[in-house]
């Protein structure tokens, strides 16, 4: 097996960080919204759709992370 050069390794780490950190950020952001949404749905099930929408809004953060990861990998 050929040893990969250090640049490639750094690129991979960068891509991993982009996805991992944005994933954590999404999780933190969704935590509060999700808890509140579940509470609202328990009171009134017709809040389901709105609750879902509110909960998944921060998911865009991790999608950005994925997009950035691809840009980083593509530039290497």
């Amino acid at each position: 097996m050929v040893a990969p050069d250090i640049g490639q390794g750094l690129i991979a780490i960068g891509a991993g960080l982009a996805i991992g950190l944005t994933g954590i950020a999404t999780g933190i952001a969704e935590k509060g919204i999700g808890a509140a949404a579940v509470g609202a749905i328990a009171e009134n099930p017709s809040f389901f759709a709105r609750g879902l929408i509110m909960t998944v809004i921060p998911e865009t953060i991790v999608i950005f992370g994925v997009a950035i990861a691809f840009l980083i990998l593509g530039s290497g």
Partner: protein
Amino acid sequence: MLKPVEMSKVTIIGPTSSLAATVESLHSLNIIHFTEAGLESDGIFSEGQPMEGASDFSSQLLRIRAAKQLLVPHRETSAVRYTEQDIDSSMKSVMDTVDEILTTYKEKQSLLDRIRYYEERRAELMPLSAFPVKLEHYRDLESVVAFVGNVSRPVDEEMLKITSRFELYSNDGGRFIALFVDRRFTSDVRTMLSLLEFKEFRVPELSGNSIDRIVEIEGQISELRKRIDGLDIRIATLSAKSSDLLNAAEETVSADVSKAEAPLHFSVTEREFVARGWVPSEDIERLTSALSAASGGKIFVDVEVVRPASEQKGPETSGNSPDDSPPVKLRNVSVSKPFELLVRLFSLPSYGEYDPTIVVAITFALFVGLMINDLGYGILMVVLGYILILYFRDSRDMKQLAYILIISGVAGAIFGYFVFGLAFGFPVSPRPLLNPSDFSVAEGLLLLCIVVGLLHMGIGYGFSLSECVAGREPRKALSSAGWIAVLLGFVTMLAGIGRHNQPIGKLIWHYLFFWVSGSSITFSMMAIPDYAVILVAAGLALLIATEGAFALLESISLLANVISYARLAAIAIAGAALAGAINTMLMPRSFSANPAMFIAGLFLLVVAQIFVFIMLTLSAGLQALRLNYIEFFIKFFKGGGRAYKPFGLSRKYTVER
């Protein structure tokens, strides 16, 4: 198909003598959605009263429902269909059955109460059963006093300090005691016990040996249990025999109740009544001819077709209170009908608005198919959907959900075979279109999904544009056009950046963006086509002119919306990668020569595959839903429609004649 059914406002006026015939006829038509009686201001009209027998029907219905609750649930034998006449003529025997069920239940409850009573008595005797003392001796002795109860620690030593003339029985490590002492020492012993936190135990006022009493009580309990078993058998027999009949009776009687209470929706005077409601315009003919047949032409029906607010000329015309707007009945072909569930979960479209169900149906199936992208998981979804249909025959929502699962599963299976060529992560197709583990393919797929997003959101803006044009609102129409330009600009920009990607990016650039000139400007090492810049600038200019500078900020969120579609590809690739990783790790174990390893490996493989399936299905479904709700609906959808609930009966257990 894109708009809810057109409704007409009908006003039915007739003499009170034909009220019953009118109600009967409206009920069997099952097309009118009553509006509440708006009492005329001159005070001639009053609210209608329920017809005779309404309260009898209601109490009958209450009893039938109570009895139905108590029956043992069993699979419907849907072959039996009662006619309304059957039920009417056998009403007495139906009510007898209901009474029998209710009395049996009451009897069972009273037996259960008695069992509870005996169990309490037994619990009281239990602690004493360890002591060889007759029950009467706890209270009837002259020279000796008994202390029975709990103490915090054994009392022997403390007792010896007071006197040796005592008899002590203890249990529970000395903490439950029966202490018999010479009456003379009563107060000393009481003081000592109170220091040991003595809690007195009430000895039941029975006599004889406590164990004998317990055996007696247990005999009585088992006797009662036997009687309860007998009653349970009776209820089970009654369930098997009459649950179909009760279902049918419930349907008939609830129809009777709603007919008898129908006049509550009417305005009446002494001689005539006025009923108002909404009827689909296409059914007006049926309504008028049925009513004139029922009353011999004595009834007058006034019809007013209501155009959606957006198509009316001039500012808001007829009353706009929410109760005044027409109810909404969606019209969809049978394949897209289940997806009404997803639209309703968000909100029912308002009257005259575009019904997005058909777009949701197509995109939801497409998105889920793209994300699942696996023949095996697709087939599993179909099977799951079929099982759901079998289990939830009664619930419309669950059935619709099951159909959605089946349709999306079929899409997933087709994508899986032809695009990635995978089944449970194993390659199955000889020539798959794409290899998900190829980086360049993954990149191209992200771009493809963004282009799909362009179409999806473009339809949303198209709906909004068309509504603004129909409503003659040039400013709003121009701003929709502006958004479309910005959207197209953003996607052109991304397609331009990815145009060198092999093979997807190149194909997209070649076939979809052929109209874009090759020239571009370079910005932070990315070549952005001139056309993209022009489109975004032109769109933004239009937006600033129509909506103000705030639109600049919002355009950023549109960019976020566009990139958001990349999740389709991301989940598809992640799913394939996850299944592939599991297979690579666990397959060698499953084909081990060691039988123990073989079984363990196979078990782990199955568990892991189920895990991937659940994760993938859940996240694919939620993401497809989200793309529709957030990226698509927000562009045009208002919602807040009232559901169309016609006066009548959708029969399940009975037939009319």
